């Protein structure tokens, strides 16, 4: 996969970060994806994806506060960058013609 292209899961993560620009950390992202897709991704898969997106320059992260529920460990807060938003829009326009709702499929535009 090219450096600037996205996979389906990367697209889901970036879309969620676009919709929730504040307080996005691992658990919250998992819950948001689960609410939309009905399936919770694993924590390991999420972190490897976020790490890859950060290396591509599509997200940036910073350390947040620690809480007792987390065993005193700090959260890592994620935020989408301008290039990340561009990548989401490009991916969206790429898959839109293949949607069953598109005219080519006999659906409604």
């Amino acid at each position: 996969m090219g450096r600037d292209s996205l996979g389906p899961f990367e697209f889901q993560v970036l879309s969620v970060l676009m919709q929730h620009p504040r307080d996005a950390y691992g658990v919250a992202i998992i819950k948001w994806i689960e609410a939309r897709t009905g399936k919770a991704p694993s924590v390991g898969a999420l972190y490897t994806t976020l790490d890859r997106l950060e290396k591509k320059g599509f997200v940036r992260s910073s350390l947040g506060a620690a809480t007792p529920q987390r065993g005193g460990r700090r959260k890592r807060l994620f935020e989408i960058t301008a290039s990340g938003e561009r990548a989401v829009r490009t991916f969206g326009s790429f898959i839109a013609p293949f949607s069953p709702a598109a005219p080519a499929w006999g659906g409604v535009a």
Partner: protein
Amino acid sequence: MTDKMPDDFRRLYEVAAKLEPLRNSLKDFEHVLMTTDDAEEMRKLLRQDVADFILTQKRANSVTTLLIDTALHASPARAAETPSVPGWWQGMLYFVVPAGASEELAGDLEELFHLHAAERGTHYARWWYRWQVCLAAGSFLRRGIEAWASALSPFAK
């Protein structure tokens, strides 16, 4: 403490108390079983009697964990305690995850562990935690292999 328990729980607690000292050795078996879960594969790697013994322990381990968790959480003294993540597996997490990501990943897993424990019980939450550690190991291993293959690829830009 056992005086006030219903009879069924008291008997269960007594069995669990006897099994508790075996817990560490059973965890070693659990590790072997997590890395090699296929019975035929295990018989190729190990002597027949050893493989059969481990497979027997696998079934015993499930029963033991269930007994211990049920009995300990049925006891009045433990009921008020906050459940804790499986310690050995938390150690494994720090071993398999790169240092830069381990703190936040361990924190997220612990937060989700408590959510699962509250919603579906401690026993479920512990098995969920163990499975997540295995998945995290797989994800980071795959990521490492991809990076390594990409670096070596003659088609890389």
